[in-house]
Each structure stands twice: as structure tokens, then as C-alpha cells.
């Protein structure tokens, strides 16, 4: 059954959209990532214009993170204080991101920016996570415990001013690096149509030693708030949010996310990180191939209706 999308201005199969939403939702629930880094490329791949794909993904991510965040909230696996600090930085990044997005769109560089950013981000994060999780698994096999940091053992960025204690996450750190992390994630997320969970989760684990059990819920909370604002700003400034596309993806997504969240509970930390790393690498390689492989057609075309 074909469904005409009023803002994307093309018909797509309803069941394809529901299925895509469901698959992304499953992954999003499983790893606590928004799933946007898979959804945006998929939408572009099926023919949705890049600006609409990015802006609509934000709405989808908002919906799936509500579901996830509530589940973790009920399990008491969410650090609200830490999430709030991240979100404050995230909002600033989101505002900057929307304006950067529209500037690039005007200049005609948006597609290139999206592709290059995806390759760099996904490949570097994917490789880091892959190597780290393999290392952790090997250490576990040889019986050596992972090196734990002693309480009070702080890295330089944690010693910056404005120190705050986060009892839920069993740590204390300066809020500057945290808000900075939120800002970067908010900016990247808005420009690329991703929640940024796949960046927040490892960053919180590696740089701030936040327990894995709390990281996912907290990252979902931060994603939820930033993506709500990103959707609003994209609707107002970019005018590229397709409500019908968002609705179908969300319906598929929220259902998929339920199954993902449950499956995720059964995974061990290292397995979890290794799987996520592989997934990120696959998407990254797919984008890299686009850049490296000789194009079948050197020309591509883009037609736009004039403003009436």
C-alpha cells in the first residue's frame, strides 16, 4: 500500500516504512541509541530528500527515546542530575546545529557535509569501540580484571572548576566537560538527524566511568530533550519535518523498541559494546564506499519547485 508523503513529496510503501521503523526501534531499544544514525541513511536511500530525512528522524528519535527513557526511569537506571547537565549543553548545540544545517542547505553543501560527517564519525567511534571491547573480552578470558580507577582518582578535565557530585553515577566531576559533551552531541545530532546515543554512551563510560547500567537511561533522557527541541526547530526553521512519515516510523519504532529493550537486558557489557561497534562500522563502511568507489554515474540531479 503506497502512502503519499506531503512534505517529502513522494509516495512510499506503508509497510516498508513500518518495518523500517520497527527494525530501527529494536536496535534503539537494544543499545539505548536513538537509531538515527541508521534511520537517516535508510530514508535517504529509499528516496526521501536529505533535509526531510534528517528533520523527520529527529521526531522519530524523540518518540523512541520517550519509551526507552520511561522504561529505564522505572527501573531506577537513570541519573536525572547527570542527564540535565548534558541536556543544557545539548540545547545550545541544537540551536547552533539548526542554523548550520540551513546555512549548508542554502550553499548546496548539505549532502556532502552529511556524508563526510557520517564517515568520519562512524568509522572513528566504531573502530575505538571495537578495539576496546575486544580488549575487554580478552582480558576477561585471561582472568585479569579490568583496571578499575580508585575513588578520587581524577583526570585533568574532571578537575576543572564547577565540580558537581553525581551520586547515582558514583562520580564527581566538573560540569564543564559534561556540558561540552552535550553541546557537541546536540550540534552533531541536529545536523545529521541522529540522537547521538552512540557517542554519549561510550563517552560517558570511557571518560567519566559512569556505570553501564545507568549510562543508557541517562543518554536516552538527554536525547529525548534535545530531539524534541531539534524537531521543533527543524519544523520552524528548516520546514522539512514530514509528520506523516514521522507517524508511520514512530508507530513501527515504539513497538520494535519494546522488544529491543528486553533483549538488551540479557546482554553483557562487552558483548553489548562489540555488537554496537560492529553495527556502527557497517554503516560507516557503507558511507565510505560511497565516497571511495567510482560512481556508476558521475552526474546527479536535484530539482526543486520554486517558492509560490
Amino acid at each position, binding site marked *: 500500500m503506497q502512502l*503519499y508523503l506531503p512534505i517529502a513529496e513522494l509516495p512510499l510503501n506503508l509497510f516498508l516504512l513500518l518495518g523500517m521503523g520497527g527494525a530501527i526501534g529494536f536496535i534503539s531499544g537494544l543499545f539505548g541509541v536513538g537509531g538515527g544514525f541508521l534511520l537517516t541513511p535508510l530514508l535517504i536511500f529509499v528516496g526521501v530528500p536529505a533535509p526531510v530525512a534528517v528533520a523527520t528522524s529527529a*521526531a522519530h528519535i524523540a*518518540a523512541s527515546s520517550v519509551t526507552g527513557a520511561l522504561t529505564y526511569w522505572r527501573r531506577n537506571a537513570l541519573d536525572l542530575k547527570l542527564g540535565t547537565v548534558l541536556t543544557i549543553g545539548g540545547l545550545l548545540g541544537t540551536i547552533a546545529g539548526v542554523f548550520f544545517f540551513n546555512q549548508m542547505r542554502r550553499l548546496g553543501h548539505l549532502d556532502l557535509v552529511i556524508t563526510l560527517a557520517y564517515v568520519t564519525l562512524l568509522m572513528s567511534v566504531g573502530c575505538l569501540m571495537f578495539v576496546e571491547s575486544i580488549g575487554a573480552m580478552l582480558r576477561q578470558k585471561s582472568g585479569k580484571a579490568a583496571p578499575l580507577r580508585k575513588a578520587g582518582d581524577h583526570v585533568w578535565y574532571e578537575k576543572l572548576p564547577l565540580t558537581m557530585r553525581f551520586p547515582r553515577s558514583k562520580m564527581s566531576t566538573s560540569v564543564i566537560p559534561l556540558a561540552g559533551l552535550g553541546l557537541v552531541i546536540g550540534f552533531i545530532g541536529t545536523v545529521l538527524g541522529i540522537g547521538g546515543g552512540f557517542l554519549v554512551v561510550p563517552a560517558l563510560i570511557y571518560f567519566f566511568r559512569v556505570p553501564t547500567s545507568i549510562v543508557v537511561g541517562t543518554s536516552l533522557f538527554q536525547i529525548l530533550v534535545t530531539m524534541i527541541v531539534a524537531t521543533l526547530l527543524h519544523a520552524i526553521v528548516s*520546514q522539512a519535518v514530514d509528520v506523516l512519515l*514521522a507517524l508511520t516510523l514512530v508507530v513501527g519504532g*515504539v513497538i520494535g523498541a*519494546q522488544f529491543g529493550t528486553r533483549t538488551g537486558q540479557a546482554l553483557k557489557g562487552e558483548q553489548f559494546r562489540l555488537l554496537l561497534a560492529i553495527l556502527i562500522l557497517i554503516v560507516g563502511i557503507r558511507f565510505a564506499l560511497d565516497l571511495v568507489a*567510482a560512481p556508476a554515474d558521475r*552526474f546527479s540531479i536535484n530539482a526543486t519547485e520554486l517558492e509560490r
Partner: protein
Amino acid sequence: MRRWLALALLALVLPGHARAEELVLALSTREVAITSTYTGAEVTVFGHIERDARTIARTGEYDIVAQVQGPTGEVVLHRKGRFGFIWLTESRRRYSKVPLYFSILSAKPLASIIDEDGRQRLKLGLEHFLPAPTPELEERDEFGFRNAVLRLRREEGALTENDKGVTMIRPNLFTARIVLPAKAPTGLYLVNISILSEGVPLRTAQAGFVVRKVGFDAFVANAARNEAVTYGLFTVLMAVLLGWMANVVFRKD
């Protein structure tokens, strides 16, 4: 000039003089509605060539050429080039005010209906989709941008030439079938129909139809444009509510 025109008109109405054919057109629809189930559409033009006792006798049969032109827009063509080991857009060309839909329908190949000179004079043919470039510009088109535009627009169904698009039902009665792609732009479409006989153009007539979003899709598109804040809030609210509902419905713990 005006005197000549008056004389010509007089010649037309004076009895006893030979007259050219009349062309009467009717469209199957004046409005193509884009709804939630829209996947493309067809518009049929019915044409009747009227003759009477005073019409010049023709030895050959009539040829019909229908040229359909959609709303104009901007087409940007990108060409990738190699930089080290990656491929990036190395040049782009912008064509503004290009018809976003352009189609030529006839009952047999255009070349066998009218010769090159005649096609140029009547502006018939796919090459008139893009305004003819100046000779200097043609020289500088070293990458073949012009051909690429024609090729890619053709692949997208936005530029078509169909020499079976016109059906002659009777020698003086025909239909032309206009096929609109799923991504047809909204706006006014002009249909220009010429009758020719043995390569000589006899008469041209125009008709038009509108493609527009109606119902829910029109409502959404308008809201997104004119009520962006409300639209954005609604989208967010819908997303959050659905996410919350899913959580409640699937709650087990």
C-alpha cells in the same frame, strides 16, 4: 503590420475562401488531486479536427504533436570528480526556470512528422526543454552537462518523449495520454497541441490542467508552511504521546 493582419483576418472570414481546420480539445480532468494514495496519474486529451466544405482538401493524413509543460523550477546538476582516492562533487550547474515536467506525445516518431527546421520553428522536441544555450556556452559545456540533464530528467520520468502517446481513433479524432510520475510537481500544466499535415503545421490549440495537493496532504503541507510552530508542536506532542503509550501498553514490570 496592422493592415496586413486585418487583411488576413478578412481573408479568413470571407466566404468562398479556403479555410484551415479547427481544433477542439477536451481534457479528461482539469485537476489532478494529490491525496495520500497518489502514486502518479494520467490525463487524457481528446481532440477533434473540424472540417467543413470550405476547408482545404488534404492529400495526406493528419499528424498530431502534443507538448506538455509543467510548472517551472530549479534544477541543479552535480558532477563528481576524483580527489585523491575519494569522489566528491567537483562542479555543479544550476538551471533556473526549467519546466519540472516536459513531455512530447505523438503517434509516430517526431522526425517523420516534421523536419529539423520545422521543429526548430515550432519549438517542438525535448531539446526545447532547456533554453538553447548560446554557442559560446555550448563550447564550454566540456563535461556534457546539457546531455546529463536531459538523460537524468528522462530517467526520473520528468522528461518524456512518447511516439505512441497519441492514438488516432478516426482520421480526425484523436486522444493523447499524458502520464504524470509519482514525483510530479504541483502547479499548472500547459498542453500545446499542433496538427500537421505532410510536415506543414496547420493549427495549434492550448489547454491546461492543475496538479495540486488536496484533503489531508494539502492540509499538512499548508500547516507546515504557514503554521510552522503549531505544526512542530503537534509533531513533537504526537511523537511523545506515542512513545509514552507504547511504554504503557507494553509495560510488564
